């Protein structure tokens, strides 16, 4: 391998102009790939972070109530007039046990039981419809880091304390320390004290959510000891769908992942990833053709040298290696240059760009781009290398 690499490197160094030009070509290609992959990954990460910053990865709920029909004796027909059932607010059966199972479930990071339902918030003559969310702050924090979004007061619930959104506070003219009245179904009422005000940046949530502790919410919604939803986060967000299916199969409950509830968004992300992959692929293909054509020319230029090497006892396999190594070296060096340039582009974007979001470069991106470029270079060199190896020494030596 030593002599093959030595010859390959000398060949590349000798054909300096050609080598430089193709290295620039490979560099441009790889920098485009590095930049676009970093950009799209950064953009998607940003969108996903924003989306998942305010919702659980998986929501586990009680299964829908449906009408069941009694089994029919054979040979009878039946006409059915069915009134579909309204889904009343109800608790997950044995939710403590279910939660125990989910705490241990592989791939699940955090579990938080929540009881939530509708109510009105009233202050004086002003009434707003709200969603009550009863939760345990320690557990809930691991699903949605609410304390980071508190704009006034503190995140404490229980003992009549509530945390509400900024828009709701504005609508009702409330400040931290003020009191207001919550009215739920069938006249169940409670007076609560505002301990904190949050702003998640999502209008729907900032206008509707009222956080209480589990106990108070349970009594307002007439679900003593019950919870309506178990929120989960998973280690790898893109496994959420898979994990939710396994949970549904295991518990018989309804489990919905963020991928299902945000199908539109997921679809958009997928198309984006696919177009990135396609751009990268076609850039890689054109880089490969560039390497192949430069090496093909090199084989023709070096026909006589190849002939003399064969006459001196070089085997076909050795000449094959000489050209494969050239392809690999071009791929590796070109991609190193390209990765550097790609980093530069990312830096320019982060420093002088629109600053809507920051592009992080994954530490694996550059080694991976370089590895792929090296493999691409080697594969691209295969055709010219085979031609070099198969040259008939008799003909090659007399080549002018």
């Amino acid at each position, binding site marked *: *391998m030593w*002599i093959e690499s030595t010859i390959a490197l000398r060949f590349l160094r000798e054909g300096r102009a050609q080598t430089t030009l193709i290295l620039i070509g490979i560099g441009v290609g790889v920098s485009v790939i590095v930049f676009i992959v970093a950009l799209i990954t950064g953009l998607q990460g940003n969108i996903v972070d924003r989306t998942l910053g305010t919702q659980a990865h998986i929501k586990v709920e009680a299964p829908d109530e449906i009408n069941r029909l009694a089994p029919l004796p054979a040979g009878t027909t039946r006409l059915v007039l069915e009134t579909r059932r309204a889904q009343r607010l109800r608790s997950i059966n044995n939710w403590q046990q279910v939660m125990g199972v989910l705490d241990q479930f592989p791939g699940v990071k955090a579990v938080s039981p929540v009881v939530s339902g509708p109510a009105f918030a009233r202050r004086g003559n002003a009434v707003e419809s709200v969603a009550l969310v009863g939760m345990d702050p320690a557990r809930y924090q691991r699903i949605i880091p609410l304390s980071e979004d508190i704009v006034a007061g503190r995140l404490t619930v229980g003992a009549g304390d509530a945390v509400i959104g900024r828009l709701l506070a504005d609508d009702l003219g409330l400040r931290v320390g003020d009191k207001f009245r919550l009215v739920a179904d069938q006249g169940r009422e409670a007076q609560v004290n505002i301990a904190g005000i949050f702003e998640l940046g999502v209008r729907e949530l900032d206008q509707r959510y009222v956080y209480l502790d589990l106990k108070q919410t349970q009594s307002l919604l007439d679900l003593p000891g019950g919870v309506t939803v178990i929120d989960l986060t998973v280690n790898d967000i893109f496994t959420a769908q898979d994990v939710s299916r396994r949970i549904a199969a295991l518990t018989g409950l309804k489990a919905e992942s963020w991928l299902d509830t945000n199908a539109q968004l997921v679809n958009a992300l997928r198309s984006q990833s696919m177009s990135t992959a396609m751009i990268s692929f076609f850039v890689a293909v054109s880089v490969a053709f560039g390497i192949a054509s430069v090496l093909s020319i090199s084989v023709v230029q070096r026909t006589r040298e190849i002939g003399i090497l064969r006459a*001196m006892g070089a085997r076909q396999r050795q000449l094959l290696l000489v050209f494969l190594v050239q392809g690999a070296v071009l791929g590796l060096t070109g991609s190193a240059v390209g990765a550097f340039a790609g980093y530069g582009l990312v830096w320019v974007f982060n420093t002088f760009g629109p600053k809507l979001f920051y592009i992080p470069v994954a530490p694996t991106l550059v080694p991976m781009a370089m590895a792929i470029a090296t493999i691409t270079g080697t594969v691209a060199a295969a055709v010219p290398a085979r031609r070099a190896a198969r040259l008939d020494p008799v003909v090659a030596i007399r080549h002018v």
Partner: protein
Amino acid sequence: MSDQDEVLRLAGLRKSYNVGLPTELEVLHGLDLTLGRSDFASLVGPSGSGKSTLLNLLGLLDAPTAGDLYLLGEPTRTLDDEARTSLRAKSIGFVFQFHHLMPAFTAVENVMMPMLVTHGRPSAQTLERARTLLDEVGLAEFMDRKPQELSGGQQQRVAIARALITRPALLLADEPTGNLDTKTAASVFDLFRRFNREHGCAVLVVTHDPRLSAVCDRTITLVDGAIVSDERRPRA
């Protein structure tokens, strides 16, 4: 000539092109020839007589259609490319009309090249031998020059040193002085003569130049693919 002295023997060697086609053409018609270790021979003949074809066969660059070629007593016709390549590397040195040095390597690296492609990294002995050979061809001061920094005669001398690095039993030269002036050509021939004597290596030179063939011990004349004369002269 004893069997130990035999380097090369041709037995009814034939070479045809386009075998099996209507245009089949036999270029060499059953040649018989023996070359001994001490031979310093020239191969002459008009253009188209089959000299180059014969040289390719002798150098194991090509395989005969019929008959056989014995190199150091070993039949070679049935060898595959791999075996032929390794036998060629071990036993035959080549010098061509155009030096065919590799421009990316220095003189001493070019001389070592046959050892490098067969044995990899050079040993101290290989390097020493390459230096000695370059010294013998009078290029001691030019070892680290690239071929393009040498004159035509110097390049050809590097090529001769390269042909001898593997201590071949047979040195084949194809018009080695074809593009050199008369004086340089004569000095190149002197080198062949010296290596033939001092290294015990059979030399076969293909040449057009009657003055050069006249200084060889033996002249083999090929006309229309057949050996028409094989003269030996007493050693000068």
